[in-house]
């Protein structure tokens, strides 16, 4: 009988994934894992990337705002709900923060409150809103500067579970916005794009981040979107066609290629100002929800899974070779696995150094983390790069990104 319905009965592969996560991530995140698990198993939020090359992007923004959406670049005020939630990350999830809905908006964010930068101690006069958990990475808003590069992204504030309707073709017949996970723009912003840059998007299919790159406020000299898998490449071409008017991708210098990413280092060394390496990974969210065959935890994909870390190292090393000295590479995944995140970054830096004498340094992304602290829940356990943790009020990610700068 279908009288009661829980979430879709787990498939074998997704159950395997969940059991593994329960073991592995509980160790990594401790009591916080429950909240992440809940978010991963629930409907994710999605954001609308406004297509700046549409007929009337301003009207589109206005329309999205009438739905209640806010601009992610906008004073982060708007992203806070009236009954402010605690945003702390540090091991605080098990300490419940029950707050009456009726509680008036507390002055927690006002100027006169000074926070200990890396501690949960707060100034007096704020006790009742202090909560028991850590409130992390809190700095005065005024200290956070706007990133140089802007993205045109609209999203619903935390705890708001509204959804965007699917985009429709505008007067020019092209789609006015692209729906994606808001965290996906972080690696793109981390690229530090500058006018005139030539960019390689090494694992581009289906093209969400490619679109985000094209749609930043910076005018680039060229973008190579690479995707070896033919079905994915087809989708990438289709996305570009649906979102850019005919001729525009040529004018913008957008080129689609279909090589194995590992070959770019040899094929065109020292050629790009920026490289984005959005590698294939054991995507946490998909692993828990996807059907058998497309699930990376399916037995039939065992080999692919074990070879995955190897591929990730190769792709990132190739990117370090393809970027010009002084240029920057952003590595990103949609898993919280430390092995596939920081682990791969260290290994690839080592690998590039050993095999090609390439020296790299890890870039600082704390400005982005600070600027977007109200839109995303960042993990505190990340030594290099940054990790967006899913949490129900802000159900984005997981998304890891790390910026590397090539020295020589």
């Amino acid at each position, binding site marked *: 009988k279908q009288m009661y319905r829980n979430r879709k009965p787990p498939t074998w592969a997704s159950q395997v994934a969940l059991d593994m996560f329960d073991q592995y991530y509980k160790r990594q995140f401790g009591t916080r894992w429950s909240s992440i698990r809940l978010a991963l198993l629930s*409907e994710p939020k999605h954001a609308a990337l406004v297509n700046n090359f549409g007929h009337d992007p301003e009207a589109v923004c206005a329309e999205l705002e009438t739905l209640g959406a806010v601009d992610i670049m906008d004073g982060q005020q708007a992203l806070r709900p009236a009954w402010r939630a605690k945003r702390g990350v540090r091991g605080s999830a098990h300490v419940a923060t029950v707050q009456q809905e009726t509680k008036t908006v507390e002055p927690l964010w006002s100027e006169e409150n000074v926070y200990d930068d890396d501690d949960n101690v707060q100034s007096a006069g704020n006790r009742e809103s202090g909560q028991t958990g850590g409130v992390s990475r809190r700095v005065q808003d005024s200290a956070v500067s706007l990133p140089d590069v802007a993205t045109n992204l609209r999203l619903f504030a935390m705890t708001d579970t509204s959804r965007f309707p699917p985009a429709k073709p505008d007067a020019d017949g092209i789609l006015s916005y692209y729906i994606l996970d808001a965290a996906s723009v972080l690696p793109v912003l981390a690229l530090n794009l500058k006018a005139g840059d030539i960019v390689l998007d090494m694992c581009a299919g289906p093209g969400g981040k490619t679109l985000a790159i094209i749609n930043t406020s910076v005018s680039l000299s060229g973008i190579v979107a690479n995707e070896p898998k033919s079905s994915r490449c087809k989708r990438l071409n289709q996305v570009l066609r649906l979102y850019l008017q005919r001729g525009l991708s040529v004018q913008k210098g957008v080129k689609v290629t279909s090589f194995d990413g590992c070959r770019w280092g040899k094929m065109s060394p020292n050629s790009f100002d920026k490289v984005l390496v959005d590698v294939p990974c054991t995507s946490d969210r998909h692993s828990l929800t996807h059907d058998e065959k497309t699930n990376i935890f399916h037995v039939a994909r065992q080999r692919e899974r074990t070879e995955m870390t190897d591929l990730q190292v190769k792709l990132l090393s190739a990117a370090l070779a393809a970027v010009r000295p002084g240029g920057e590479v952003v590595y990103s995944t949609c898993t919280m696995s430390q092995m596939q995140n920081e682990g791969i970054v260290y290994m690839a830096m080592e690998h590039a150094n050993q095999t090609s004498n390439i020296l790299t340094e890890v870039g600082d992304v704390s400005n982005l983390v600070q600027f977007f602290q109200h839109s995303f829940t960042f993990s505190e356990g990340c030594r290099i790069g940054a990790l967006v943790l899913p949490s129900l009020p802000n159900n984005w990610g997981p998304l890891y990104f790390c910026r590397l700068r090539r020295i020589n």
Partner: protein
Amino acid sequence: VFHFVTTNSHLLASPEDKVKGVFGIFLYLDISKNKVMDLLSTCPDVLKEQPNDLKRKVQNLQKYVASVENVAKLILKCPTVLTLPLLKVRSVVGVLKENCTFKTAQVQTILTTTPVVLLETPENAELLFQYAFFAMGSTREDMVKAFLFRHKWEHIRSRHMFLERRGMYEPPDKTGKTKNPNPHLRDILATTTKDFLTQVAFASYEEYATFVSLLEQEEETDVDTSDMSSSD
């Protein structure tokens, strides 16, 4: 009495012997006059019943809950029961006994502690039981203690699924067993949101509020699709 009569002036319209008859039944149940007046002002429809019908209903209830005291308890908790047709009461009790196979003593406790179950449709009562039994693996004993039938299905489901997705409620296997004990049904259902969050789920209010509204949305989309398929 003056206050009671002035605020319930419709009483004056009822024939005297009818009022007497009704009061006679409450006398039989040993319910004090003050309480009877309270009861009649919260549920004036009782006076629309014929005394003979009421007598039969009370006798019927007495059969289920064993004693006159229990009937009185039940009626004071939920006077509306007296306005229900006999058949309705019988069908709900029938579902509890036969479909849900509660023992007689359990039915008795359910009816005295949770008489609102009689207001439910039999189908809905069974749905609550099925959810607790199959999806949650609860025993009948747990359900009685948790006043299961006092809660809305949405409440039960969101509390349960919230815990399950947090990894704090192990789904039962086919035989209803789990490796580790789950939190008590009573602590999950019969608690305020605050106590539930601080003592059972260890979660923040924002998380739970967002979760509940997400579940509602899922529900709506379900309804939408079923609407569409029926119009097809």
